[in-house]
C-alpha cells in the first residue's frame, strides 16, 4: 500500500512533465497538422539558456523566466523562418524539416555548451515529503512541477475559452480556410501557436532536467514519452494531452516500480504501440483519420 501510494504520486509528478511536452506538440499539431520533432531539441536549448543565466547570476527564478521567454521567442522565430515554407506542402516536408531542426539544435548545443553532463538545479528541495512518517514518494520539487504545469495548462484553457486570441487559435485549428474567409490572419495565429508550444516545451525542460542532467540529447527520451502522451490524448486535444501525460506517468511509474526501472522507455513504447493498435485516434479525439 505504501509503495502503491509512492508510485502513484511519483507517477503523477513525472506525468505532468509528459503533459507539458504533449501540450506543446498538440498546440502545433492542431493548428498546422505538423508534428514538431524538434520540440525536445528546442526545450533542451532553452534549458541551456536557463542554465547559463543561473550560473552567471545565481538566480534560479531569473533563469526560469528567461527559459520560458526564450521558448516563446524560439518557437515564433522557427515558425517564421524554417517551418513557414513547408506550409501547404506535402506532410513529409515538415517532418524532414523538423527532424533536421532537431539535429541542428542538438549539434549547435554540443558546439556551444559541450557534450558533458551538467547538473541543473531544481526550484525546491528534492528530498521526499512525508506525512505523519509516511513517505509520499514525491518532493517539494515534484509538487512545484505539478502546480506549474497545471497552472500553465489552466491559463491556456482560459485563453482558449474566453479570449479573442484563443477563439482565433481554435477557429484556425478547426478550419483554416473558413478562418481566412472571416478575415483571421492565420499567419500570425500559426506563429503564436508555435510560440506557445515553445513556452510549454521550455517549461518541461526546466522542470525535468534536474532529474536527467543537461546534455544535448537530454530531452530525447522525454520527447518520445511526451509524444506518447499526446497520442494517448488524441493529438489535437489539450485536455487529452494533460490526461494522457498523467496516465502515462502513472502507468510507467507502476511498471518501473513493480517490474524494474531499467526499461521505462521501452514500456513507454509498448504503451504507444498498444494505444495505436486499440484506439489510434486517441482517447479524446473526435477525428477518425490521421495523415501522419
Amino acid at each position: 500500500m505504501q509503495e502503491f501510494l509512492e508510485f502513484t504520486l511519483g507517477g503523477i509528478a513525472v506525468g505532468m512533465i509528459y503533459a507539458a511536452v504533449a501540450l506543446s506538440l498538440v498546440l502545433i499539431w492542431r493548428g498546422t497538422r505538423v508534428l514538431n520533432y524538434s520540440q525536445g531539441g528546442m526545450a533542451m536549448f532553452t534549458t541551456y539558456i536557463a542554465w547559463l543565466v543561473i550560473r552567471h547570476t545565481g538566480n534560479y527564478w531569473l533563469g526560469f523566466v528567461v527559459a520560458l521567454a526564450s521558448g516563446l521567442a524560439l518557437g515564433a522565430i522557427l515558425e517564421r523562418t524554417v517551418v513557414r515554407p513547408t506550409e501547404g506542402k506535402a506532410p513529409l516536408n515538415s517532418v524532414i524539416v523538423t527532424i533536421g531542426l532537431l539535429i541542428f539544435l542538438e549539434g549547435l548545443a554540443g558546439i556551444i555548451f559541450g557534450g558533458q553532463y551538467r547538473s541543473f538545479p531544481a526550484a525546491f528541495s528534492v528530498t521526499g515529503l512525508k506525512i505523519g512518517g509516511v513517505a509520499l514518494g514525491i518532493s517539494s520539487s515534484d509538487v512545484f512541477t505539478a502546480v506549474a504545469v497545471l497552472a500553465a495548462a489552466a491559463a491556456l484553457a482560459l485563453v482558449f475559452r474566453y479570449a479573442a486570441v484563443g477563439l482565433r487559435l481554435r477557429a484556425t485549428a478547426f478550419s483554416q480556410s473558413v478562418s481566412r474567409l472571416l478575415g483571421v490572419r492565420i499567419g500570425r495565429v500559426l506563429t503564436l501557436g508555435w510560440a506557445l508550444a515553445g513556452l510549454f516545451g521550455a517549461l518541461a525542460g526546466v522542470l525535468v532536467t534536474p532529474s536527467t542532467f543537461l546534455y544535448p540529447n537530454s530531452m530525447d527520451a522525454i520527447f518520445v514519452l511526451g509524444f506518447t502522451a499526446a497520442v494517448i490524448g488524441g493529438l489535437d486535444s489539450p485536455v487529452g494531452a494533460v490526461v494522457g501525460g498523467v496516465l502515462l506517468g502513472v502507468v510507467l511509474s507502476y511498471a518501473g516500480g513493480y517490474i524494474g526501472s531499467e526499461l521505462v522507455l521501452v514500456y513507454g513504447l509498448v504503451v504507444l504501440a498498444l494505444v495505436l493498435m486499440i484506439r489510434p485516434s486517441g482517447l479524446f479525439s473526435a477525428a477518425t483519420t490521421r495523415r501522419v
Partner: protein
Amino acid sequence: MTDAPALAIEDIVAGYGGVPVLDGVSVTARPGTITAVLGANGAGKTTLLRTISGFVRPRRGRVLVGGTDLARRRPEDIARAGVAHVPEGQGVITELTVEENLRVGALATRDRAGRTAALDDAYRRFPLLAERKRRPAATLSGGERQILVIARALMSAPRVLLLDEPSLGLAPKMVAQVMDLIRQLRDDVGLTVLLVEQNARSALGIADTGLVLNLGKVVAEDDASALAADVGLRRHYLGF
C-alpha cells in the same frame, strides 16, 4: 443609376492551371442590389466567387470593391476590406458553438464594443440562433447552418456579400426562407449581394440584375425580370 459600383469585376481571367475557368469575365454590382450569377455546373460560378475572395489568383483583371483593387491580395485581407464570402457547403465550424461561430465573424473588423453590438443584432434578427447559442454548431440542421453562416458573414458588417449556392440541399420551404432573408438584407441593411445559384428561378425571384455564365464567359446580362422572361435563355442555360 449613377451610383459608383460597390463591386466591379473587370476582365478576369482565372483558373487552376491550364485552361482558364474564367475567360474575361466582367461583372458590375450597384450598391444595395442583388446580382444573380447563373449557369450550369462547371460554368465558373464558384471560381468567380473564389477569385473575388482571393482563394484563386486571377491571371488578369481587377476586382474593385468601393474603388479599391483587391485582386491578388490574400483572402484574409480581402475579408478585412469588406468582402464576406459564404462558401458552398456552408463552412460552419462544427467544433465551435453557435455563438463562437458568430464571434469569429466579428474578430477581424470590429472592436470589443462593436463585437457585442453585432452579436446582439444577430440574435435579434435570428432568434433561432439565440436559442441555440451554447450548442455545438454540429447539432444544427442544414437550414439552421445556412442561417448561421449568413449571420456570421454579417458580423463583420461587410460591404459585399458573396453567397455560393445558399439553397443547396435545403427543403423547398427553407429555400424560400433563405431567399426571403437575402432580400431583407438588401432592403434593410442595403447590402450588395452576389448570389450564385443553380436554382435560377428562386434567385431571379429576388435579384435585381443577373448574368449567365457559360464555359467561363458571360453569355447574358440583364435585369432579373428580363432574364426570367427570356424563354430561349431559360431553355438553354437555366433549366426552368
